[in-house]
């Protein structure tokens, strides 16, 4: 494995700017690594030719000293972002052969800053899942193996599992993810990388295949907090094409990054200590508290009393929106069509063949909760609880500047586990979902290894539009944790 692959995004940027290496060299190294790690199934589509072409153009700009903020940086893009001229699947059979004639706003921002497209990463179908096993293109393998069951392949988390695995395996320098209920943060935790979901409205949703519109947010997945900050700074921005896009200016994250946590008040919510949570998760959380205390932060015990309703609320609102968002996949205009003798039959055939089991389950649940006679009891009530969850956070943020929690209630489980019961799978999102419902920014930072040698992340949540504090606290944790472990496959190249 080329040494170039161990450079962080910040280091690669500096090296490229100093012309010590070229983007072409860096990109070639990543292309080779993508091929070498193809078994992980992290990518649905690789675009090596396009990558080299983009790298060449980046080198030309770098040569002229005209490089953008991410000039020549090879990135992986979650295959939920529409990319002009490049197959976009959402990991679903129903989008068979769909090549968008347009580019999403977020990826446009990245290319405008000089980034290079390596390929489109695997994900749970339509981003519905926490393990990347619902992909039509097969599960993604986590580059990490546990010490107790070294022969069992483990999930990278989901839904941005391909992006997480690629960043962890060094087959992408960084990647985009999307987070609806934890789809950036949970796989970041499982894969030993940094994943950040900004405030709802920060990144334009235009051109991202929709799962649940009121929750979907794009964000960066990278190896360091600084890398994530550099990337998010480019991805975010007001977009008039997205009516829910925020006009607030993004703070200068690089400036915020190393300000330390001295004097910051960090909330620790009692409700996140859930029954049956492995002791080592509690341990790493306590460790995080101690680190921040040692760095000069003030730790405050807080209560977020409606937390226990968050998961149920999420699993009403997200499927409700999804059931409507996915209605457009009807076989009429693009993607898969399975003919039938009537229009209704064509719909049924197409959607039965095109959607996987989990997607069908959520479309059914969503349709049910919006139905006449059930709307008030489910959807409307869920919206009310959502407001209460927001209020919980609002009240907490009157006294604290950020909140520290575990990212996920476990480390990475093996592929095939947790599949007997969808609710068991949904429990993976228990710590990430509340902030999604409230629209808050959050980051997952690797904090240590479990007893069986798998990474565990800690989550930092901030006030709306206060990504500055989030990266500040995240960076402090990162510095204290000094997480240098890498998967064996990376160490051994």
């Amino acid at each position: 494995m080329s040494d170039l692959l161990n450079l962080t995004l910040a280091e690669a940027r500096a090296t490229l700017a100093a012309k010590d290496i070229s983007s072409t060299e860096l990109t070639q190294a990543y292309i080779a690594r993508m091929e070498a790690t193809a078994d992980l199934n992290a990518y649905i589509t690789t675009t090596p030719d396009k990558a080299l072409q983009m790298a060449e153009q980046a080198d030309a700009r770098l040569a002229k000293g005209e490089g953008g903020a991410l000039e020549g940086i090879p990135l992986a893009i979650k295959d939920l972002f529409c990319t002009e001229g490049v197959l976009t699947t959402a990991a679903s059979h129903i989008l068979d052969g769909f090549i968008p004639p347009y580019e999403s706003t977020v990826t446009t921002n990245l290319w405008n800053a000089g980034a290079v497209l390596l390929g489109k990463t695997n994900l749970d179908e339509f981003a519905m899942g926490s393990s990347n096993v619902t992909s039509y293109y097969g599960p993604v393998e986590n580059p990490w193996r546990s010490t107790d069951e070294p022969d069992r392949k483990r999930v990278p988390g989901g839904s941005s599992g391909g992006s997480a695995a690629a960043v962890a395996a060094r087959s992408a320098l960084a990647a985009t993810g999307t987070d609806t209920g934890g789809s950036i943060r949970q796989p970041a935790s499982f894969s030993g990388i940094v994943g950040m979901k900004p405030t709802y409205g920060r990144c334009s949703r235009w051109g991202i295949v929709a799962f649940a519109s009121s929750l979907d947010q794009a964000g960066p997945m990278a190896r360091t907090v600084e890398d994530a900050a550099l990337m998010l700074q480019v991805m975010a921005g007001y977009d008039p094409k997205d009516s829910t896009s925020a006009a607030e200016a993004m703070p200068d994250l690089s400036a915020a990054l190393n300000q330390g946590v001295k004097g910051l008040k960090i909330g620790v919510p009692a409700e996140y200590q859930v029954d049956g949570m492995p002791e080592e998760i509690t341990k790493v959380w306590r460790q995080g508290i101690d680190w921040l205390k040692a760095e000069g932060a003030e730790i405050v015990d807080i209560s977020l009393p409606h937390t226990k309703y968050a998961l149920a609320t999420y699993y009403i609102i997200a499927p409700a929106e999804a059931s409507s968002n996915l209605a457009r996949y009807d076989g009429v205009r693009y993607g898969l069509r399975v003919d039938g003798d009537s229009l209704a039959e064509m719909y049924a055939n197409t959607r039965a063949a095109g959607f996987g089991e989990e997607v069908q389950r959520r479309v059914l649940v969503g349709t049910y909760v919006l139905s006449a006679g059930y709307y008030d009891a489910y959807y409307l009530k869920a919206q009310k609880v959502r407001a209460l969850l927001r209020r919980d956070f609002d009240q907490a943020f009157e006294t604290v500047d950020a909140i520290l929690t575990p990212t996920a209630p476990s480390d990475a489980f093996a592929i095939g586990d947790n599949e007997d019961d969808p609710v068991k799978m949904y429990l993976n999102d228990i710590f990430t979902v509340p902030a999604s419902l409230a629209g808050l920014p959050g980051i997952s930072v690797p904090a240590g290894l479990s007893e069986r040698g798998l990474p565990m992340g800690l989550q930092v949540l901030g006030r709306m539009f206060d990504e500055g504090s989030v990266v500040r606290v995240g960076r402090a944790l990162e510095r204290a944790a000094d997480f240098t472990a890498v998967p064996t496959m990376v160490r051994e190249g």
Partner: protein
Amino acid sequence: MTEPYRIQGETGEWEVVLGLEVHAQVISHAKLFSGSSTTFGAEANTQVSLVDAAMPGMLPVINRECVEQAVRTGLALKAQINLRSVFDRKNYFYADLPQGYQISQYKDPIVGEGVLLLDLPDGSTKSVGIERLHLEQDAGKSLHDQHPQKTYVDLNRSGVALMEIVSKPDLSSPEEAGLYVKKLRSILRYIGTCDGNMQEGSMRADVNVSVRKPGDPLGTRCEIKNMNSVRFIHQAIEYEARRQIEILEGGGKIDQETRLFDTGRGETRSMRSKEDAQDYRYFPDPDLLPLVLDQARVDALGAELPELPDVKKARFIADFGLSPYDAAILVEERETADWYEQLAKGRDAKIAANWLISELFGALNKAGKDLSESPVSAESLGGLVDLIGDGTISGRIAKEVFAEMFETGKAAGDIVEEKGLKQVSDTGAIEGIIDAVLAENADKVEQYRGGKDKLFGFFVGQTMKKSQGKANPGMVNDLLRQKLDG
């Protein structure tokens, strides 16, 4: 007041209760949530943006122009403007509905209760309540006649803004329903928010029909969908009311259902029953924030509204002395009202109104033309009215001149000149003619003077005939009286 509309059944008289939901296509350059053009009649699928085709990841962005058109319409209907309204998704599958849902407004429409005045034929008015007005997307078009097995889809119309304007069940006859549609159309055209073209489908109406014995509570209603002409609305209501009465008088009950009007057979038939009705699973569209309006902007839009038909009608009655009936006819179209005002300026407004309504409209109607295509301009017709007013020609001659004007487009004065139609108002000349007539009819003069008063008209007729119609009728009258009675 006109007699209430009643249908005679076997068990007595029935009344009908009607409410209308009118879908009016908003005049705007772009669609409700996309930048595509809205021009009618373009080649299929040439006015379709990524949003209209519901490509993955596409998002709606509200078009300010459409919102302002809805506000204008609400203000013209004297309705409550809701400063906060919400767009909802109405979910259903159809091939010409690319998103699989229509973005509409369900619980919180942009416009609330208002009122519309019907101009009844007897000159009175009737107030009809407006329940609400909301904005929504139109669907595309399914073309079933292009291929023996397949249906083609044209998405040009997909996403075009519609206003759904819902009346209260205040209408009680087919005529009133027709007048409602006409009046609404008139208002929309005045303020330029909908072209009202029912043939092109830019205005369509769903009619809710129920029947009851006078004084009874409301009956169960049926909704007749997608009516695109006033004539069909009349026919459909008449048919549907009779159908319901027959069922009720036969001891049956009305099923609440949606029906279609078969224009060929002149009957309504069931489209779907309430049980089959779709569950649209309305919920607020999470891609759109609630629509918030600024009162100052609403006020500014109100201030920019033109004079509306009701106000204009009142002014025509007050300033021009017109009958409510004539005034209502003249204000129906803004262009007609403007035309009339140009004609009436500085002239006898009532004579002007008569000439416009009876003569010009009649001639245009016969020729199948509308006012904008009239060969006679307002100025030109004014010239004719002037010639009548100053006694140059008589009213009878004027009709002859008008026919010529309509035919050739020539000015009235030129025609009178060319044809020598000028009225004879020279006392000597008229006296000469009268003398000749009296001399020729000495016997009748005798009879007249003997008490047969009715013969006076005969002498007038003979005199006019002899003058080839050109003698001033008033003078003929006066001079005849002097000579016969004096």
